[in-house]
């Protein structure tokens, strides 16, 4: 009985993780502009991978005692995903990627009157950004 329950939990976790990761990648493929595309991978894919790891954790725990190292990867993924999303958004703002025309709000970082630094032109050493 307990085995059946655990197997069901593992299967559910694996499939839920797969579906979440697939939806995240679908968002990455078909949304309109970069800032919207950022949402899919940063949230949905992270949770998908987290679900898969927890499924695998239950799978290995049920055979030979508790195995919790896989929690390390899950925690690592959940801590690092927001940081890389933030850095990517920042570099997109720096490159002044155009947002979708429906986007409301006009941040000063995207105004085009300031001189545009491309990677080649950027001054070495003392860049204006932190």
């Amino acid at each position, binding site marked *: 009985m307990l085995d059946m329950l655990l*197997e*069901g939990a*593992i*299967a*559910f976790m*694996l*499939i839920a*993780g*797969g*579906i979440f*990761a*697939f939806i*995240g*990648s*679908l968002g*990455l*493929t078909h949304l309109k502009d*970069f800032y919207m*595309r*950022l949402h899919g*991978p940063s949230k949905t*894919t*992270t949770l*998908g*991978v987290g679900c*898969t*790891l927890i*499924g*695998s954790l239950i*799978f*290995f725990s049920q*055979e030979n005692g508790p*195995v919790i*190292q*896989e929690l*390390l*990867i899950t925690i*690592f*993924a959940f801590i*690092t*995903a927001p*940081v*890389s999303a933030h*850095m*990517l958004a*920042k*570099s*997109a703002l*720096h*490159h002044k*990627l155009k947002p979708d025309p429906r986007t409301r709000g006009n941040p000063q970082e995207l105004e085009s009157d300031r001189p545009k630094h491309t*990677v*080649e032109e*950027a001054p*070495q*050493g003392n*860049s204006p*950004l932190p």
Partner: protein
Amino acid sequence: MIATALWIALALFSAAIALNFYRAVIGPSLPDRVLAVDTMYMNSIALIVLFGIWVNNKDYFEAALLIAMLGFVSTIAVCKYLLRGDIIE
């Protein structure tokens, strides 16, 4: 039951990696491509973990941990380069 779920999850993650690859190839801007490659890193962690379940060997988790760390560090390094044209100051 687990075998079936494993196949479904493997198929979904492979499809996700194919979609990421498509975005990495067509991506109109550099941040788009970096984002696509970062997502590919995440999905390949899951693929390796699933493979570990398939062959019933938990040592594959170390490979997954290494990929997670390399993926994060390389994404941050490329973002730094895009932001300033320099990685280490």
